[in-house]
Protein backbone atom coordinates (compact mmCIF):
# COMPACT_ATOMS: atom_id res chain seq x y z
CA UNK A 1 0.00 0.00 0.00
CA UNK A 2 1.35 3.43 -0.85
CA UNK A 3 1.24 6.65 1.10
CA UNK A 4 -1.93 6.88 3.15
CA UNK A 5 -3.99 10.02 2.95
CA UNK A 6 -4.78 11.52 6.36
CA UNK A 7 -8.32 11.91 7.59
CA UNK A 8 -9.74 15.38 7.65
CA UNK A 9 -12.21 16.39 10.33
CA UNK A 10 -13.76 18.83 7.88
CA UNK A 11 -14.64 16.11 5.37
CA UNK A 12 -17.87 14.15 5.60
CA UNK A 13 -18.18 10.71 7.20
CA UNK A 14 -19.30 9.37 3.82
CA UNK A 15 -16.26 10.64 1.93
CA UNK A 16 -13.80 9.54 4.62
CA UNK A 17 -15.31 6.06 4.90
CA UNK A 18 -14.85 5.55 1.16
CA UNK A 19 -11.14 6.01 1.88
CA UNK A 20 -10.94 4.04 5.16
CA UNK A 21 -12.84 0.89 4.16
CA UNK A 22 -10.76 0.03 1.05
CA UNK A 23 -7.63 0.46 3.21
CA UNK A 24 -8.95 -1.97 5.79
CA UNK A 25 -9.94 -4.37 3.03
CA UNK A 26 -6.39 -4.33 1.62
CA UNK A 27 -5.02 -5.07 5.06
CA UNK A 28 -7.48 -7.93 5.51
CA UNK A 29 -6.52 -9.45 2.14
CA UNK A 30 -2.79 -9.30 2.96
CA UNK A 31 -3.07 -12.63 4.80
CA UNK A 32 -5.37 -14.37 2.34
CA UNK A 33 -2.65 -16.20 0.36
CA UNK A 34 -1.02 -17.66 3.48
CA UNK A 35 -4.37 -18.60 5.02
CA UNK A 36 -5.66 -20.50 1.99
CA UNK A 37 -2.30 -22.18 1.28
CA UNK A 38 -2.30 -24.20 4.50
CA UNK A 39 -4.66 -25.04 7.34
CA UNK A 40 -1.68 -24.81 9.70
CA UNK A 41 -0.90 -21.11 9.26
CA UNK A 42 -2.59 -20.26 12.55
CA UNK A 43 -0.85 -16.91 13.10
CA UNK A 44 -1.88 -15.65 9.67
CA UNK A 45 -5.44 -16.77 10.24
CA UNK A 46 -5.44 -14.98 13.59
CA UNK A 47 -4.15 -11.74 12.01
CA UNK A 48 -6.64 -11.98 9.15
CA UNK A 49 -9.48 -12.52 11.62
CA UNK A 50 -8.50 -9.43 13.64
CA UNK A 51 -8.23 -7.32 10.47
CA UNK A 52 -11.61 -8.67 9.36
CA UNK A 53 -13.25 -7.77 12.66
CA UNK A 54 -11.88 -4.25 12.49
CA UNK A 55 -13.18 -3.90 8.94
CA UNK A 56 -16.57 -5.27 9.96
CA UNK A 57 -17.01 -2.91 12.93
CA UNK A 58 -15.90 0.04 10.79
CA UNK A 59 -18.37 -0.93 8.07
CA UNK A 60 -21.12 -1.02 10.71
CA UNK A 61 -20.31 2.62 11.51
CA UNK A 62 -20.66 3.49 7.84
CA UNK A 63 -24.05 1.79 7.37
CA UNK A 64 -26.08 5.04 7.37
CA UNK A 65 -23.88 6.40 4.58
CA UNK A 66 -24.49 3.75 1.93
CA UNK A 67 -27.21 1.62 0.39
CA UNK A 68 -28.32 -2.01 0.18
CA UNK A 69 -25.26 -3.09 -1.77
CA UNK A 70 -23.09 -2.00 1.13
CA UNK A 71 -25.34 -3.84 3.58
CA UNK A 72 -24.88 -7.02 1.52
CA UNK A 73 -21.11 -6.46 1.46
CA UNK A 74 -21.11 -6.09 5.24
CA UNK A 75 -23.06 -9.34 5.58
CA UNK A 76 -20.44 -11.14 3.45
CA UNK A 77 -17.63 -9.77 5.64
CA UNK A 78 -19.57 -10.74 8.76
CA UNK A 79 -20.00 -14.36 7.58
CA UNK A 80 -16.33 -14.79 6.80
CA UNK A 81 -15.21 -13.28 10.13
CA UNK A 82 -17.65 -15.51 12.04
CA UNK A 83 -16.19 -18.54 10.29
CA UNK A 84 -12.68 -17.42 11.21
CA UNK A 85 -13.80 -16.90 14.80
CA UNK A 86 -15.12 -20.45 15.00
CA UNK A 87 -11.84 -21.83 13.62
CA UNK A 88 -9.90 -19.75 16.13
CA UNK A 89 -12.05 -21.08 18.99
CA UNK A 90 -11.30 -24.65 17.85
CA UNK A 91 -7.55 -23.87 17.80
CA UNK A 92 -7.63 -22.40 21.30
CA UNK A 93 -9.64 -25.30 22.71
CA UNK A 94 -7.55 -27.99 21.02
CA UNK A 95 -4.42 -26.36 22.49
CA UNK A 96 -5.99 -26.18 25.93
CA UNK A 97 -7.10 -29.83 25.88
CA UNK A 98 -3.81 -31.17 24.49
CA UNK A 99 -1.84 -29.31 27.16
CA UNK A 100 -4.19 -30.56 29.87
CA UNK A 101 -3.93 -34.16 28.58
CA UNK A 102 -0.12 -33.93 28.74
CA UNK A 103 -0.30 -32.74 32.35
CA UNK A 104 -2.72 -35.53 33.27
CA UNK A 105 -0.51 -38.17 31.63
CA UNK A 106 2.51 -36.88 33.54
CA UNK A 107 0.51 -37.04 36.75
CA UNK A 108 -0.70 -40.57 35.92
CA UNK A 109 2.88 -41.75 35.48
CA UNK A 110 3.49 -40.93 39.13
CA UNK A 111 0.43 -42.86 40.33
CA UNK A 112 1.19 -46.53 40.91
CA UNK A 113 -2.35 -47.77 41.53
CA UNK A 114 -4.22 -47.95 38.20
CA UNK A 115 -7.68 -47.19 39.64
CA UNK A 116 -6.47 -43.84 41.01
CA UNK A 117 -5.22 -42.66 37.63
CA UNK A 118 -7.13 -39.88 35.92
CA UNK A 119 -9.01 -40.85 32.77
CA UNK A 120 -7.87 -39.16 29.53
CA UNK A 121 -10.17 -40.97 27.10
CA UNK A 122 -12.78 -38.19 27.08
CA UNK A 123 -10.13 -35.54 26.51
CA UNK A 124 -8.87 -37.51 23.50
CA UNK A 125 -12.44 -37.83 22.20
CA UNK A 126 -13.01 -34.08 22.54
CA UNK A 127 -9.75 -33.26 20.77
CA UNK A 128 -10.69 -35.62 17.92
CA UNK A 129 -14.15 -34.05 17.68
CA UNK A 130 -12.74 -30.51 17.64
CA UNK A 131 -10.12 -31.40 15.02
CA UNK A 132 -12.91 -32.74 12.81
CA UNK A 133 -14.95 -29.56 13.29
CA UNK A 134 -11.89 -27.43 12.61
CA UNK A 135 -11.14 -29.28 9.38
CA UNK A 136 -14.66 -28.81 8.10
CA UNK A 137 -14.74 -25.10 9.09
CA UNK A 138 -11.40 -24.50 7.39
CA UNK A 139 -12.68 -26.11 4.17
CA UNK A 140 -15.73 -23.82 4.34
CA UNK A 141 -13.44 -20.82 4.78
CA UNK A 142 -11.27 -21.81 1.82
CA UNK A 143 -14.35 -22.26 -0.34
CA UNK A 144 -15.69 -18.87 0.77
CA UNK A 145 -12.41 -17.08 0.06
CA UNK A 146 -12.21 -18.80 -3.32
CA UNK A 147 -15.73 -17.51 -4.03
CA UNK A 148 -14.49 -14.04 -3.04
CA UNK A 149 -11.88 -14.31 -5.80
CA UNK A 150 -14.24 -15.80 -8.40
CA UNK A 151 -16.99 -13.21 -7.85
CA UNK A 152 -14.53 -10.39 -7.18
CA UNK A 153 -16.12 -9.67 -3.80
CA UNK A 154 -13.31 -7.19 -2.87
CA UNK A 155 -14.29 -5.06 -5.87
CA UNK A 156 -17.95 -5.22 -4.86
CA UNK A 157 -17.02 -4.06 -1.33
CA UNK A 158 -14.97 -1.14 -2.70
CA UNK A 159 -17.73 -0.17 -5.12
CA UNK A 160 -20.42 -0.36 -2.44
CA UNK A 161 -18.73 2.44 -0.49
CA UNK A 162 -17.60 4.46 -3.48
CA UNK A 163 -13.96 3.49 -2.95
Amino acid at each position, binding site marked *: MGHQQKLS*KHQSLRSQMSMIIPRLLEKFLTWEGRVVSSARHLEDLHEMRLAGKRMRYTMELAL*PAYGEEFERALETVKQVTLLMGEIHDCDV*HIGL*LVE*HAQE*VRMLNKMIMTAKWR*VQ*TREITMLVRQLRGERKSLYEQLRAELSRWRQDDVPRAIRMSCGG
Partner: protein
Amino acid sequence: MAAPWKVLDLDPDEPLKRAVPKLARARLQETFSYQSQLLKTYDAEAVHDMRVSARRLQTVLRTFHEVLPRKRVKPYERRVEELVRLLGDVRELDVALAILTLPMSASQTRLSGVAILAARLEYHRNVARKHLTRFLTRMDRERFTDRFSDVFGRER
Protein backbone atom coordinates in the same frame (compact mmCIF):
# COMPACT_ATOMS: atom_id res chain seq x y z
CA MET B 1 -24.55 -11.19 19.11
CA ALA B 2 -26.59 -8.03 19.44
CA ALA B 3 -26.77 -5.72 16.42
CA PRO B 4 -25.04 -2.35 16.78
CA TRP B 5 -27.23 0.52 17.92
CA LYS B 6 -28.34 2.93 15.23
CA VAL B 7 -27.03 6.45 15.69
CA LEU B 8 -30.28 8.29 15.16
CA ASP B 9 -29.06 11.87 14.74
CA LEU B 10 -26.17 10.94 12.45
CA ASP B 11 -26.01 12.58 9.06
CA PRO B 12 -23.38 10.85 6.87
CA ASP B 13 -22.75 14.10 5.03
CA GLU B 14 -21.81 16.08 8.11
CA PRO B 15 -18.10 16.57 8.76
CA LEU B 16 -16.20 14.08 10.88
CA LYS B 17 -15.75 16.62 13.67
CA ARG B 18 -19.50 16.41 14.27
CA ALA B 19 -20.14 12.80 13.23
CA VAL B 20 -17.38 11.09 15.24
CA PRO B 21 -18.50 12.37 18.69
CA LYS B 22 -22.01 11.08 17.92
CA LEU B 23 -20.66 7.67 16.93
CA ALA B 24 -18.45 7.49 20.02
CA ARG B 25 -21.22 8.51 22.41
CA ALA B 26 -23.60 5.96 20.89
CA ARG B 27 -21.05 3.14 21.19
CA LEU B 28 -20.25 4.18 24.75
CA GLN B 29 -23.92 4.04 25.74
CA GLU B 30 -24.34 0.74 23.89
CA THR B 31 -21.40 -0.79 25.78
CA PHE B 32 -22.63 0.14 29.22
CA SER B 33 -26.25 -0.74 28.48
CA TYR B 34 -25.28 -4.37 29.17
CA GLN B 35 -23.62 -3.68 32.49
CA SER B 36 -26.51 -4.18 34.92
CA GLN B 37 -27.65 -7.44 33.26
CA LEU B 38 -24.06 -8.68 33.27
CA LEU B 39 -23.44 -7.91 36.93
CA LYS B 40 -26.79 -9.39 37.95
CA THR B 41 -26.47 -12.78 36.24
CA TYR B 42 -23.11 -13.04 34.51
CA ASP B 43 -25.13 -14.39 31.62
CA ALA B 44 -22.73 -15.44 28.83
CA GLU B 45 -24.67 -13.50 26.21
CA ALA B 46 -24.49 -10.25 28.22
CA VAL B 47 -20.73 -10.71 28.59
CA HIS B 48 -20.40 -11.34 24.85
CA ASP B 49 -22.62 -8.38 23.90
CA MET B 50 -20.78 -5.98 26.19
CA ARG B 51 -17.43 -7.16 24.83
CA VAL B 52 -18.49 -6.75 21.20
CA SER B 53 -19.90 -3.27 21.93
CA ALA B 54 -16.70 -2.26 23.72
CA ARG B 55 -14.75 -3.44 20.67
CA ARG B 56 -17.03 -1.34 18.47
CA LEU B 57 -16.24 1.63 20.69
CA GLN B 58 -12.52 0.86 20.36
CA THR B 59 -12.96 0.79 16.59
CA VAL B 60 -14.36 4.35 16.65
CA LEU B 61 -11.48 5.54 18.81
CA ARG B 62 -8.81 3.84 16.69
CA THR B 63 -10.26 4.58 13.27
CA PHE B 64 -10.78 8.26 13.99
CA HIS B 65 -7.88 8.90 16.37
CA GLU B 66 -6.56 11.57 13.98
CA VAL B 67 -9.66 13.69 14.44
CA LEU B 68 -10.15 13.14 18.18
CA PRO B 69 -8.58 15.22 20.98
CA ARG B 70 -5.81 12.68 21.58
CA LYS B 71 -4.60 13.81 25.00
CA ARG B 72 -8.07 13.90 26.48
CA VAL B 73 -9.23 10.65 24.91
CA LYS B 74 -6.12 8.58 25.69
CA PRO B 75 -6.77 7.87 29.41
CA TYR B 76 -10.34 6.79 28.62
CA GLU B 77 -9.17 4.68 25.70
CA ARG B 78 -6.82 2.82 28.05
CA ARG B 79 -9.72 2.06 30.36
CA VAL B 80 -11.75 0.75 27.43
CA GLU B 81 -8.81 -1.48 26.45
CA GLU B 82 -8.66 -2.84 29.99
CA LEU B 83 -12.41 -3.42 29.95
CA VAL B 84 -12.16 -5.34 26.65
CA ARG B 85 -9.36 -7.46 28.11
CA LEU B 86 -11.30 -8.30 31.29
CA LEU B 87 -14.48 -9.09 29.34
CA GLY B 88 -12.38 -11.26 27.01
CA ASP B 89 -11.00 -13.24 29.96
CA VAL B 90 -14.52 -14.11 31.12
CA ARG B 91 -15.82 -14.73 27.59
CA GLU B 92 -13.01 -17.14 26.68
CA LEU B 93 -13.70 -19.19 29.78
CA ASP B 94 -17.48 -19.17 29.12
CA VAL B 95 -16.84 -20.56 25.63
CA ALA B 96 -14.25 -23.11 26.78
CA LEU B 97 -16.55 -24.39 29.54
CA ALA B 98 -19.40 -24.76 27.05
CA ILE B 99 -17.45 -27.31 25.00
CA LEU B 100 -16.65 -29.53 27.97
CA THR B 101 -20.01 -31.24 27.85
CA LEU B 102 -19.35 -34.70 26.46
CA PRO B 103 -21.60 -37.24 28.20
CA MET B 104 -19.68 -39.02 30.94
CA SER B 105 -19.89 -42.78 30.77
CA ALA B 106 -22.16 -44.21 33.45
CA SER B 107 -19.75 -46.99 34.34
CA GLN B 108 -16.92 -44.56 34.88
CA THR B 109 -15.13 -45.27 38.10
CA ARG B 110 -11.97 -43.28 37.53
CA LEU B 111 -11.66 -39.55 37.94
CA SER B 112 -12.34 -37.78 34.65
CA GLY B 113 -9.68 -35.53 33.14
CA VAL B 114 -12.41 -33.43 31.55
CA ALA B 115 -14.06 -32.85 34.93
CA ILE B 116 -10.74 -31.72 36.40
CA LEU B 117 -10.24 -29.28 33.53
CA ALA B 118 -13.81 -27.97 33.91
CA ALA B 119 -13.26 -27.39 37.64
CA ARG B 120 -10.01 -25.57 36.94
CA LEU B 121 -11.63 -23.37 34.29
CA GLU B 122 -14.57 -22.61 36.56
CA TYR B 123 -12.20 -21.47 39.25
CA HIS B 124 -10.42 -19.16 36.76
CA ARG B 125 -13.76 -17.87 35.52
CA ASN B 126 -14.79 -16.93 39.06
CA VAL B 127 -11.53 -15.04 39.50
CA ALA B 128 -11.98 -13.30 36.12
CA ARG B 129 -15.57 -12.34 37.03
CA LYS B 130 -14.40 -10.85 40.33
CA HIS B 131 -11.78 -8.74 38.52
CA LEU B 132 -14.38 -7.54 36.04
CA THR B 133 -16.91 -6.68 38.77
CA ARG B 134 -14.27 -4.72 40.66
CA PHE B 135 -13.26 -2.85 37.52
CA LEU B 136 -16.84 -1.96 36.55
CA THR B 137 -17.61 -0.82 40.10
CA ARG B 138 -14.57 1.45 40.00
CA MET B 139 -15.66 2.83 36.62
CA ASP B 140 -19.08 3.62 38.10
CA ARG B 141 -17.53 5.32 41.09
CA GLU B 142 -15.40 7.47 38.78
CA ARG B 143 -18.47 8.29 36.64
CA PHE B 144 -16.58 6.97 33.64
CA THR B 145 -19.40 7.13 31.08
CA ASP B 146 -20.45 10.69 32.02
CA ARG B 147 -16.90 11.99 31.93
CA PHE B 148 -16.05 10.22 28.69
CA SER B 149 -19.29 11.50 27.10
CA ASP B 150 -18.32 15.02 28.17
CA VAL B 151 -15.09 14.74 26.19
CA PHE B 152 -17.14 14.28 23.02
CA GLY B 153 -19.81 16.73 24.09
CA ARG B 154 -17.37 19.60 24.32
CA GLU B 155 -15.97 18.76 20.91
CA ARG B 156 -19.20 19.52 19.07
